[in-house]
């Protein structure tokens, strides 16, 4: 979103000469003093900035794990709408609460349309996954809960119906993140649901000073995840066992919080990466015969660099070092580093946490939602993280008073130098990094269709924050690519732009971060590159196509079958 205050005609003319200066004139930090890059526009957009009332916590773990916020076009009118998954307040007698659906109106503000959208049903929300499961052009909605999950089919124009039972979903575990993807290449989106714990509400935990505290994952057994196959007729079947998703120890050591569904092993088949809290992460490698094998340990993405498990929460995925390979970032508990695994040409990922510069800043924060995105269009992927503790910690400056002071933390924005080395730019991040809250979900999307990527954050007290991207991007170009297969977003597809002797890798992905759903259009910051020579797409069914080049600073749509086979 561009700040209207800074887009006067004179300003535009002044900047229009900058592209000829090349990359030096592209991106933030140029000129005098760093301007704030993100502005909190929650209230301006008509979204709820403050929780109604939020009581002190009761040390019941589900009350602090909420994460769900989703950006997607629910009514196919061309702009992004917002779904907010909510948790009942601590101490509420009724442990169920309705989620909220906000439709973006023509003036850019959001209107609460929960009732008319058919999403007023109450639950104990955690996250959501968004995808067109029937290839009918409408985005359907899977809501994960602490308790039974819900599946809402979109009947068109953003009107949903709960068809959980009819569709064959029987998921009573504590579900967290979920991701749609087509693992068997039959053209229909399947669903992977991560489960967290077999939570026991009666269990009480203490810290080493014998103060009551939220129980961590080691206080309980994990719960096995579920893989649902889309049968192509509006129903899904549980294929978890058949697909071999049974490790580790039948789920006892699986404490899933984050999920990504795309090809991470360069064989053209979509894999599933799961971040497990205090246990080994899993990389479910798709064998192409309907089964998966966990190669997280083998490929070096399960543990820290000393071979030990960490408190893995959210996941970001993207090519941060511009080598044409996907890299993974996993967020962690405070006193642990958020971990960056770089893809390599060999079978292993390489732990680049220390070299990336990220480890200098993250020991004081508990990371949840996260994502790589090029906020300033300078042709590399930057990083946003949202934070909030799950264990009591000394209150930070700016924290709210009272019970939640011990859990509130500011968010963080990191700028990439193009080689996967990041610098904390909190001072430039504006209110995104200055508000000290207990944040969980983070979703990305171009809220006002101006070409740059904005962010929405959900907090543990059911408040939302929308951050408008005001980063100066003069002289930098961009491209948004929507890839469609059978009339729907080709979730998991990988898009390579070739331009000026360089290659840019992007993803059509909605599910990453933590319990959240982002706009699946691939967004590319291009720096001074003004013409794209060619676009290559790896479709989720493993086929590849190339498309002719295009002009920049626009959104384009590519359809499977309309490109040239290599």
């Amino acid at each position, binding site marked *: 979103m561009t700040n209207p205050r800074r887009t006067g005609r004179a300003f535009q003319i002044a900047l229009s000469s900058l592209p000829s200066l090349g990359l030096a004139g592209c991106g933030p930090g140029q000129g005098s003093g760093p301007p704030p890059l993100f502005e909190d526009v929650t209230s301006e957009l008509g979204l709820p900035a403050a929780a109604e009332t939020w009581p002190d916590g009761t040390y019941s773990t589900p009350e602090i794990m909420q994460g769900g916020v989703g950006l997607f076009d629910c009514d196919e009118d061309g702009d992004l709408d917002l779904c907010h998954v909510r948790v009942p307040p601590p101490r509420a007698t009724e442990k169920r609460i309705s989620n909220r659906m906000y439709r973006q109106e023509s003036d850019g503000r959001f209107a609460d349309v929960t009732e008319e959208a058919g999403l007023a049903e109450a639950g104990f929300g955690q996250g959501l996954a968004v995808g067109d499961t029937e290839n009918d052009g409408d985005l359907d909605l899977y809501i994960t809960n602490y308790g039974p999950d819900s599946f809402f089919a979109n009947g068109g124009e953003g009107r949903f119906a709960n068809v959980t039972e009819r569709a064959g979903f029987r998921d009573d575990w504590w579900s967290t993140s979920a991701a749609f993807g087509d693992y068997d290449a039959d053209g229909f989106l399947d669903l992977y649901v991560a489960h967290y714990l077999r939570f026991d509400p009666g269990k009480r935990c203490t810290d080493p000073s*014998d*103060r009551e505290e939220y129980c961590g994952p080691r206080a309980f057994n994990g719960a096995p995840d579920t893989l649902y196959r889309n049968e192509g007729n509006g129903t899904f079947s549980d294929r978890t066992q058949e697909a071999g998703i049974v490790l580790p120890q039948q789920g006892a050591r699986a404490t899933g919080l984050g999920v990504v569904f795309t090809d991470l092993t360069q064989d053209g088949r979509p894999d599933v990466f799961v971040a497990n809290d205090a246990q080994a992460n899993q990389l479910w490698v798709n064998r192409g015969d309907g089964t998966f094998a966990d190669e997280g340990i083998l490929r070096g993405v399960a543990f820290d*660099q000393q071979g030990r498990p960490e408190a893995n929460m959210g996941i970001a995925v993207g090519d941060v070092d511009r080598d044409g390979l996907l890299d993974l970032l996993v967020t962690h508990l405070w006193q642990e580093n958020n971990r960056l695994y770089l893809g390599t040409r060999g079978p292993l990922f390489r732990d680049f946490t220390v070299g990336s510069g990220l480890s200098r800043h993250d020991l004081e924060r508990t990371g949840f939602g996260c994502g790589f995105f090029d906020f300033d269009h300078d042709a590399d992927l930057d990083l946003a993280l949202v934070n909030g503790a799950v264990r009591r910690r000394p209150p930070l400056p700016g924290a709210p008073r009272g019970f939640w002071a011990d859990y509130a933390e500011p968010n963080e924005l990191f700028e990439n130098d193009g080689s996967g080395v990041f610098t904390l730019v909190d001072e430039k991040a504006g209110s995104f990094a200055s508000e000290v809250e207990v944040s969980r979900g983070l979703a990305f999307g171009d809220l006002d269709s101006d070409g740059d990527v904005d962010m929405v954050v959900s907090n543990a007290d059911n408040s939302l924050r929308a951050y408008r991207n005001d980063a100066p991007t003069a002289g930098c170009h961009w491209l948004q690519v929507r890839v469609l297969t059978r009339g729907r977003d080709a979730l998991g597809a990988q898009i390579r732009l070739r331009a000026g002797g360089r290659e840019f890798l992007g993803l059509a992905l909605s599910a990453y971060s933590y319990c959240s759903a982002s706009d699946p259009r691939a967004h590319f910051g291009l720096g001074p590159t003004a013409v794209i020579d060619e676009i290559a797409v790896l479709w989720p069914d493993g086929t590849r196509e190339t498309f002719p080049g295009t002009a920049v600073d626009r959104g384009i749509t590519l359809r499977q079958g309309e490109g040239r086979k290599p």
Partner: protein
Amino acid sequence: MSSSPPARRPRLPSLALALALCACHRGPPAQEIPLPSLAHVDPEVVEAIQAARDLVRRDPGSSEAWGGLADRYLVHDFSKEAARCYARAEELDPDRAVWAYRLGWSLVNDDPARAVAPFERSLRSLDSYAPAHEAFAQVLVRVGRPDEAFEHLARASELDPESPVAETGLGLILLARSDFEPARKHLEEALERDGKHVEAHVGLAQVLLALGREEEARRHAELSRTLPQTSRRSDLFASPNLPPAGARARTQFGNQLQRQGKPEEAAEQFRLALASNPGYYTARWSLARLLVKQGKRDEAIELLREAERMDPSFEQVREDLARLLEPAQETEEAGSGDE
């Protein structure tokens, strides 16, 4: 009747006395002794902290007193306060390596870069102690100094040829450098020393995959899943030996006593833990398990039923009760997990 103003004169000598006392006070005044927020902390823990603070107040020039307070903070996870007290203890007695060593440990999670120097200092005296080299190497890896870490691990391996820890560390550093063949040798050596060392299996799985030996790689990966996570190496200098305070510490101490074959003393600790916090289920379960071993099954069952009455929604207690009611059942593996 007129009231006379309060006499001021006596105050002067008091002030002078106070100043004189301050002057001969070699350490900081009480308010400079680090104190974390103790809100909601178990009263027994608060009492133990106050006692340790009193010792510092009484003898602020004593490294022993400062180190004792630091130890108390460290075991109750007040690591920032612990670090400040260890630093003072070291200042007062720089020759006592344990203060620098524990200062390193108290900083290792919050700020590994700051832990480097004290660990390095401690090695002047602990150079022949393998765990100190391993701890230092671990920190060096975290701060991106793997070459120096490699040297310390090599030294640790020499000092303790039985331990798999250093060899595993050497293998993992080489793996990170993509020196796969030498990495394999170190990781295999680690497994020679301890075939159940899970991190060595994890590292070797990756090395073998990179070397194209996929089947063997998978075998090690699979094996690593079945093994329990390696517990922290026993380290006499790193772990303060303090009288337990609070339910959690008493339960841990009780378990330790039980392993040492002292069931009666263990039971006493579990009971004290429950007296301190009746809701601390780990203590309850530990005591119940011990009672079963002592043939007091009924007492054990009553103990768990009491927990059930306290919170009927507590599912685990029902499962544990079912285990206790099955006479032939092994009870060791049940109970509450690590928090």
